[in-house]
C-alpha cells in the first residue's frame, strides 16, 4: 500500500469513527484526521443577522411596489404621449386624409360614411375618462402591493 492509499484509508477510518460506525482507537494517524474533521464541522465565521429573512422579505415587497409604480407611471406616460402625439399630428393627418380623398375614390367613400360620426365623438371626454381609469388602476395596484407579490 503506497502513501496515498494509506492516507485514503486513514481518512475513511476517521470518517467512520466520527460517524460512530467504528472505534479506531490508538491510531494517531486516524485521530489526526478525526481532529481535522471536527475542525471542518465548526460553524463558519460570523453568522447572518437573525432578522435576515424578514428584512429580505420586506425588501422584495418594497421592490415589487416600486416596480408596480414604475410600470404604472410608464403606462401613463405612454398614454399621455400617444394622446399628445395625436393632438399634434391631427392637422397633418387631416390634410393627408383630404389628399387621400381626392386620390382614392374608395377611401373617399369610406371616410364619407364615417365623417359625421367622427366629428360628433366627444374626444376630450374619452381622453379624460381613459386617464382617470388609468389613475384609479394605478392607485389600486399600489395599495394592494402588500398582498400581491408578483414573482
Amino acid at each position, binding site marked *: 500500500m503506497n502513501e496515498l492509499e494509506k492516507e485514503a484509508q486513514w481518512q475513511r477510518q476517521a470518517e467512520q469513527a466520527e460517524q460512530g460506525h467504528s472505534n479506531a482507537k490508538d491510531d494517531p494517524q486516524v485521530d489526526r484526521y478525526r*481532529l481535522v*474533521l471536527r*475542525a471542518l*464541522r465548526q460553524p463558519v465565521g460570523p453568522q447572518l443577522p437573525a432578522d435576515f*429573512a424578514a428584512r429580505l422579505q420586506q425588501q422584495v415587497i418594497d421592490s415589487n411596489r416600486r416596480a408596480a409604480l414604475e410600470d404604472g407611471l410608464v403606462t401613463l406616460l405612454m398614454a399621455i404621449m400617444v394622446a399628445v402625439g395625436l393632438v399634434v399630428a391631427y392637422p397633418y393627418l387631416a390634410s393627408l386624409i383630404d389628399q387621400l380623398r381626392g386620390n382614392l375614390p374608395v377611401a373617399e367613400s369610406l371616410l364619407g360614411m364615417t365623417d359625421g360620426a367622427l366629428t360628433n365623438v366627444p374626444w376630450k371626454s374619452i381622453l379624460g375618462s381613459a386617464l382617470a381609469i388609468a389613475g384609479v388602476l394605478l392607485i389600486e395596484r399600489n395599495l394592494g402591493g402588500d398582498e400581491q407579490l408578483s414573482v
Partner: protein
Amino acid sequence: MGEDQTLVRAVLAGDSKAFAQLVERHQRLVWHLVYRVVQHPEDARELCQEVFLRVHRCLRQYRFESAFSTWVGRIAYTIAMRFVQKKRLPVEAPKGDDEESNEPLAAVADGFDLETACADAEVMAHLGAAISCLPTVQRTLVTLYHLEELGIAEIAQITDLPDGTVKSHLFRARKQLKRQLEERLGELA
C-alpha cells in the same frame, strides 16, 4: 424537498411570507458557501442578499428536477465565484502545493491524544486558519461536505465539477489540513 416545493409554489402564487420561510430554510447553506468563497463578512452578507433576490426573481425557472437546496446552492456558488473572479482573488492553489503535500509525513511524535487536542483552542484555531488558507474550491467543497453534510453528487451539481474531481479535492484538502496540523503539533512538541 416536499416542504420546499410547497413553499416555492406559495411564493409563485404571491405569498411573501413563504419566501421568508424559504430564506430561513436555506440561509445557512448559502451563508456557509458564500462566506467560505469570499471570506469577508460584509461582502458575504451582501452576496447572500443578492443570492436570495436572484432566487426570487428566477423562481419560475426552477423546474423541481433537483433538490431546491441544490438549485439555491448553485446560484450562490456562481454568484460568489463570479465576485471572487471580478475581484481577481486567487481561486486555485499555487502550483507545487500538491507536490509538497505528497512528501512523507513529518516526523511528529505519535503521542497524540484526540480529545486533548480537540479541547486545545489554539490547535483548533490553527486548523480553522488552515482551512481559510486552502484554495477557494477546496475550502468550499470541504464546507459543503463536512459542515453542510451534502453528498458528493449534490456538491458536484452545485459546483459543476465531476464527482471524481470533488472526491479528489476533498482528499487533498483533508491531507493538507492534516499536514498543517502535524506541523503545528511539531512546533508545540
